């Protein structure tokens, strides 16, 4: 199925409040603006309050089949329990992006490519600790080559509302910061 056109299946996981759901939403929105078929599926339920939160994002040239990602192309983990829970939900050859600010251990699998970025520290350097999820998006964009920055910034306004326009510059900085972690 992978050779039938573009298909990217992503799991983003962390604890509630780290912005993993909104990061996934921005990614899905940007994918849609760039002409992909997209689906965003959140975990919902009692585990969301104070516990772990995660979402599945599918970006595809074809109509999205299963919106549930069981073998991700890309896993992004913002905290330790998420790495423990989802490490085995990555297809061989896939990538795992690890938030090394909060996760000390390394990825134990040898058949995936792991990247370690101190997302919280990078966000703190910008003076906006809450922007770790946006730094993450910047890193993802640099690694994958998509989506493009204009689509991501437009998506930011779609997801958070036009009222948050004043935060656009700091979020653009956070994207650049994330990209700089890769390059």
């Amino acid at each position, binding site marked *: 199925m992978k050779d039938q056109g573009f298909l990217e299946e992503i799991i983003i996981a962390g604890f509630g409040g780290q912005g993993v759901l909104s990061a996934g939403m921005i990614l899905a929105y940007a994918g849609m603006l760039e002409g992909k*078929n997209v689906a*965003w*599926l959140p975990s*919902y339920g*009692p585990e969301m309050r104070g516990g772990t939160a995660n979402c599945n994002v599918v970006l595809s040239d074809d109509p999205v089949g*299963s919106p*549930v990602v069981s073998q991700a192309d890309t896993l992004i983990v913002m905290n330790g329990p998420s790495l423990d829970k989802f490490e085995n939900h990555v297809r061989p050859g896939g990538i795992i992006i690890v938030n090394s600010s909060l996760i000390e251990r390394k990825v134990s699998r040898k058949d995936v490519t792991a990247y370690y970025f101190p997302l919280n520290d990078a966000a703190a350097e910008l003076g906006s600790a809450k922007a770790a999820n946006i730094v993450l998006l910047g890193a993802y964009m640099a690694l994958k080559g998509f989506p493009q920055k204009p689509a991501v910034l437009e998506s930011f306004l779609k997801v958070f509302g036009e009222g948050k326009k004043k935060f656009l510059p700091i979020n653009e900085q956070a994207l650049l910061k994330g990209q700089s972690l890769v390059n």
Partner: protein
Amino acid sequence: MAKVLMKGNEALGAAAIKAGCRYFFGYPITPQNEVPEYMAREMPKAGGVFVQAESEVAAINMVYGAASTGARVMTSSSSPGISLKQEGLSYIAAAELPCLIVNMMRSGPGLGGIQPSQADYFQATRGGGNGDYYMPVFAPASVQELVDLVPLSFDLADEYRTPVMILGDGMIGQIMESVEFHEAPPRPLPSKEDWITVGTGEKRSPHIVNTLRIVPEVLEKFLNGYFNKLETIKQKECRWEEYGLEGAEIVLVAYGTTSRIVKSALASLAGEGIKAGLIRPITLWPYPQRAFDRIPPSAKALMSVEMSAGQMLDDVKIASAGRWPVHFFGRSGGMVPTPGEVAGAVKQLLGDRE
């Protein structure tokens, strides 16, 4: 209108308002809470009425009342809440009133859990309330299809004077997908003037909404007319999708979100040289039995795939009429099958047959 990214529950609310629904009565329950949330915010802007009732029983009876006036009205809930609405639903069917009921299914029985499930198939398609009644049941597989089925549901409800159900699940309620709101093709609908209870203005005798028909001869006569109506719906309103049937060795049958998981499984099976097809019922009642006449001679078996212990399986067996062995694969309790599991079940079955 441009594409927007919307949650299924919110897109449902937007589509209903766009379809002329001006009355929503509901009571909160996960995983459909975004529906009343959206309606509470948006319905007043459209000049409509939103009421969070004191219970599901109250909500369905508010629907009963509003429907009696000919208004476009809906309610939504999830499995245990829909169970509470069954009495009202039977009354609405018996009174031949149009309305839309949405069930975003979660796991059961009892309070069960809040994860996606398809275990209310029997309740939806067999009539969960008392008496000899059925209602059209639509099963959308995507947010776009959900949005497209809403105006059709209201139109069918008005045309046949019947409650109509949209049967989704927690996944279709929670998922965000790109969606476009199309203008629904206009459908000629009958006038409601001869039955709605909106006041006589002292110019005519009162219209009466009543489901008590105590004289057996009277009730049977009514029911015969009612059954004729159901027969017309069966003839005219079956909808389904055929997918990859040509040359298929095995045909899977799945509805709603499960059908998408099956499509992903079919793609991976095709990669291994296994030809499998899919019949996806879009109407669960009336069940698209005619679709099964289109299964090619290459098919040696059918498999119903569901998020339940096997409910639609009965309808697949009826539709198959003994022409093929019918198998089943399902997950239940809120567990969602993966494409790999479905593909594995198909391979195991084909392997067993060799």
